[in-house]
């Protein structure tokens, strides 16, 4: 089922959680609502579920207005961040709950419920655990009980709030893959909220980047990662260097550093900020000629197969990062004497007046390397 969201606003007291948000979620897709904490992504999810009332706007399920529909009528499967399993019920009763509370006329027979629960538990690979209580399950198992419980009501939409937030890294990795497969098998329109860009890029068919109560960009993981619509998306979806410079004669200039493309020519004679991913800088032990700038190496860290070089431009002292492969790194260290030289391979320009990059978010988010998702993209 497709969901259309039209001009939705929601405030909590003085806080504008969502402002005039419009979004279309195509039927059968796996969509990520990605944003920093407090961006309004969870509020949007709760509005879709009907757990929250909006002040303005409309949410349509397959073209049908849901504004007056109660949560019970919407038939959404909601998986809560901390699962919200009924702690006094066994796994079986948790999963059966949605069927057992149906009115007598709609409720399936006991044997039918039993068969259905069994089938769901098999689907989430928890068969044999039906008499356990939530407290006797691991985090990953609880997550899957919550999912089975939500699926029991045959929802038209599956909504997941930070589905992997409370799990440790290894379990999270497994569950992501598994959930993606499950979605592929079931083909239910699924929306999940996450603050982890790696998770969003890896799992989703479509990523919706939410920030400060609005939507920054919607697109496939490749689109949003490779063509960020604005500086926020650029810095939110991975590590990025920013070089503030000037475009003179169609050429970006920052000291000795030069860069020229179709794009830079459009920015002629203006001050701009260049956004460069750490792998979009070329590095060499000697200067490659014009456009290359000298840099000082300040710190080196290993991040899996890559090596991150933290550097400083000699002329201006501006800090930046480069990511190179292990072999490249060895090559460079063999030959380097004193300074390194860098050159811009690729850069995106934005006007200086555009929203400054939020440093806290950047630090928070960028602590994860994007190397993996990048390769996939």
């Amino acid at each position, binding site marked *: 089922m497709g969901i259309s969201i039209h001009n939705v606003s929601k405030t909590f007291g003085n806080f504008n959680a969502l402002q005039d948000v419009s979004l279309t979620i195509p039927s059968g897709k796996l969509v990520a609502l990605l944003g920093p904490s407090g961006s309004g992504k969870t509020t949007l999810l709760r509005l879709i579920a009907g757990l929250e009332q909006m002040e303005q706007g409309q949410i349509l399920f397959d073209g049908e207005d849901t504004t007056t529909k109660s*949560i*019970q009528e919407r038939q959404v499967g909601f998986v809560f961040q901390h699962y919200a399993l*009924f702690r006094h019920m066994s796994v079986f009763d948790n999963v059966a*709950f949605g069927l057992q509370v149906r009115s007598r006329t709609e409720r399936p027979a006991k044997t039918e419920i039993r068969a259905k629960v069994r089938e769901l538990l098999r689907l989430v690979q928890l068969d044999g655990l039906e008499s356990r209580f939530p*407290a006797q399950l*691991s985090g990953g198992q609880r997550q899957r009980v919550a999912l089975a419980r939500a699926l029991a009501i045959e929802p038209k939409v599956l909504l997941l709030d930070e589905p992997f937030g409370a799990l440790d890294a290894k379990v999270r990795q497994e569950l992501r893959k598994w959930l993606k497969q499950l979605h592929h098998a079931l083909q239910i329109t699924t929306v999940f909220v996450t603050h982890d860009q790696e998770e969003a890029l890896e799992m989703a068919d479509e990523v919706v980047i939410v920030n400060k109560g609005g939507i920054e960009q919607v697109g496939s993981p490749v689109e949003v990662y490779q063509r960020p619509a604005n500086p926020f998306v650029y810095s939110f979806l991975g590590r990025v260097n920013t070089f503030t410079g000037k475009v003179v004669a169609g050429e970006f200039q920052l000291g000795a550093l030069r860069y020229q493309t179709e794009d830079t020519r459009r920015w002629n004679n203006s001050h701009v900020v260049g956004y460069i991913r750490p792998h979009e800088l070329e590095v060499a032990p000697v200067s490659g000629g014009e456009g290359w700038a000298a840099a000082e190496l300040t710190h080196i860290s290993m991040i899996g197969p890559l090596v991150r070089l933290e550097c400083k431009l000699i002329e201006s002292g501006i800090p930046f990062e480069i990511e190179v492969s292990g072999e490249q790194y060895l090559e460079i260290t063999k030959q380097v004497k004193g300074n390194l030289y860098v050159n811009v391979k690729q850069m995106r320009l934005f006007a200086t007046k555009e929203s400054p990059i939020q440093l806290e978010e950047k630090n928070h988010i960028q602590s994860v390397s994007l190397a993996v998702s990048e390769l996939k993209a």
Partner: protein
Amino acid sequence: MSHTNQSQRATHPTAWLMIALSLVFLGLFLIVPLIAVFSEALKGGVGAFLSAIDEPETMAAIRLTLLVAVIAVPLNAIFGVAAAWVIAKYQFRGKNLLLTLIDLPLAVSPVISGFLFVLLFGSQGLLGPWLAEHDLKIIFAVPGIVLATVFVTFPYVARELIPAMQSLGNDEEEAAISLGANGWQTFYRVTLPNIKWGLLYGVILCNARAMGEFGAVSVVSGHIRGLTNTIPLQVEILYNEYNFVAAFSVATLLAILAIVTLIVKSIMEWKAERQTIEQEPDMIVRAYETGGSIHGH
């Protein structure tokens, strides 16, 4: 409500001293009086004890006490659940005021509470003339006793449930609703099982207080023998008449009620603690996770 008894083993002399002190204190102020009550009551033998209780006036007092408890306790249980529900699950203006009001009966002397009702419903009171006109009797009658008891005992259930419900949060209720449950199903199948031990404990405390209340009831009762005397009032009357064996015999009933309350309370706390351990996932989860019983791949 749950006390985690994970203190270290007492070995230090100071610890022993403290334990000894509290035991002496407990003995002097609780155990000795309790023994005194029972020994006084049984002074004249079991026969005298039983016949003291079997007096018509005493039986009437017992019946009245039970009647008052049967009315007051369910009322306050319903009120307590409702109050705890709105306080724990909703944000609204005047929430703190409501919390303060719930505590009021605990802060006000029961005698004052009793006078409050006399001032309201007494023949010289605010509603007195109107009540007299309609031939309704509240003060110095059973309705007054019930009202005073309800007032004095209404904090117990609510106070017990508010922290429990606050710590539980809203998630499970929201989950139930999203799965299609209506309000009643959500309460009955999800909320109630989660608060049942706290609720039972609150009800038991409320009951003990309802049966044992003296001050407020004494003011509104009028001490009409066989009609408006509850057990505590009957004990006082017998005592004032120097009928010690009878006074202590009836008092044993309240003492037994107190002991039963304490026993039930301990059982409840034990159960509630077990429940919180069950609900404290991480301790157990880790054990499972290190066991590697995760099926996902």
